[in-house]
């Protein structure tokens, strides 16, 4: 493990992440223009979606693939369920619902970092795991909405005597509206679209797109992780009022989620590479798609909570400690 952990730190992209954290920590005015950062996040989605699609076109949706995808969707339902139970008494109920959704969903950049880790260590993984990633978005969001309306109805019950309550509580959004919002969310849709286009064009398409989607990928990832480092350090500054329990949750639960995923992967006989990706998908929390949707679907929750937890704590934990740690466990179990 020591070797791969070290290799992790010597990757220029990861080093740019640390550099970004450092720059923001010393209050540098270094800044990637917002439109560039947004474009890079779209680029990364296109690149991994496309790559996954091409790989899938090669392998097809066989039993291995279906097992991986099924395991991922199961985790996307399981993680928010027990997360909510854990959080319920210890956080505002709406915050609990939003945090549960955040951790049911995934971080594409953590997924990419794990793929890079596997590539560096010459471990194979399947294109179907990208499909799995795509499919984890919706169950998590459905859970969030169901949990939020459960919270809403129990809160309404308690508040019913008060007349003013109706005026304060926002009109709940329909599950259908939220699902539309989730499915049409730009980031989510772009990933699906790129996967499909990769699948349709296969090797021929790959060859045409490779200089853009593969060759310069590492460099753009490095720039993007620099921006992520800046973001993480700046977000942490906002974390002053954050309850310690939530910080603990953000730092401990990833390993718990990953462990459950690893056990599941082992039971299903998945390959080591796919197992790591499943672990990382389960361990990571969303900081783009789900916050965007929660702002709409659970406006009562405080974004400062769930966003800071997933971006400020869980993301760096997974990048620095999580990925090599989970892989260490997998190596121990698989060999």
């Amino acid at each position, binding site marked *: 493990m020591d070797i791969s952990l070290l290799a992790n730190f010597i990757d220029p992209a990861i080093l740019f992440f640390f550099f970004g954290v450092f720059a923001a920590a010393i209050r540098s005015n270094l800044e990637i223009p*917002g*439109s560039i*950062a*947004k474009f*890079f*996040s779209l680029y990364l989605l296109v690149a991994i979606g496309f790559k996954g699609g091409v790989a899938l076109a090669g392998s097809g949706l066989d039993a291995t693939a279906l097992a991986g995808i099924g395991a991922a969707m199961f985790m996307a339902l399981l993680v928010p369920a027990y997360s909510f139970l854990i959080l319920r008494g210890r956080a505002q109920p709406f915050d609990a619902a939003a945090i549960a959704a955040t951790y049911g969903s995934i971080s594409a950049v953590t997924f990419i970092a794990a793929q890079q880790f596997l590539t560096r260590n010459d471990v194979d993984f399947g294109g179907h795991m990208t499909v799995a990633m795509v499919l984890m978005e919706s169950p998590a969001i459905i859970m969030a909405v169901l949990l939020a309306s459960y919270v809403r109805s129990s809160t309404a019950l308690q508040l019913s005597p008060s007349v003013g309550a109706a005026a304060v509580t*926002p*009109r709940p959004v329909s599950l259908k509206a939220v699902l539309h919002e989730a499915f049409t969310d730009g*980031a989510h849709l772009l990933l699906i679209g790129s996967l499909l286009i990769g699948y349709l064009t296969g090797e021929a398409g790959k060859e045409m797109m490779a200089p853009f989607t593969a060759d310069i990928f590492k460099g753009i990832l490095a720039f993007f992780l620099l*921006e992520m480092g800046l*973001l993480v350090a*700046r*977000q942490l500054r*906002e974390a002053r009022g954050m309850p310690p329990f939530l910080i603990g949750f953000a730092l401990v639960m990833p390993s718990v989620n990953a462990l459950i995923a690893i056990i599941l992967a082992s039971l299903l006989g998945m390959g080591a590479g796919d197992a790591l990706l499943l672990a990382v998908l389960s361990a990571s929390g969303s*900081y*783009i798609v789900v*916050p*965007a949707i929660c*702002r*709409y679907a659970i*406006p009562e929750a*405080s*974004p*400062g909570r769930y*966003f800071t937890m997933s*971006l400020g704590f869980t993301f760096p934990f997974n990048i620095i400690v999580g990925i090599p740690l989970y892989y260490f466990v997998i190596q121990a179990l698989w060999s």
Partner: protein
Amino acid sequence: MKAMKRIEVILPEGEVDELIEALDATEISGYTLIPSVSGRGDRGRTLRALGHLDNSYLLVACESERMSAVVEAIRPFLKRFGGICLVSDAQWVLH
């Protein structure tokens, strides 16, 4: 020049389209949109999420009579998603 009301709204950029639809129902004659503004309010600082969670700034100049209809169209959005709405007086240069 003609006396008008100058209404400015700041709200999450994902809700702008829907707000504009609501405003269209009040028959405003137009609006101007400044994208990607950031800020701080009751809900804390805007999150810096790779340009995905910014606010927008919307400016509507409307006749004084129409002002309260416009404000009523905006109010539910403020209630739901936060943000602010300021109303001030202005003279519209006719052309």
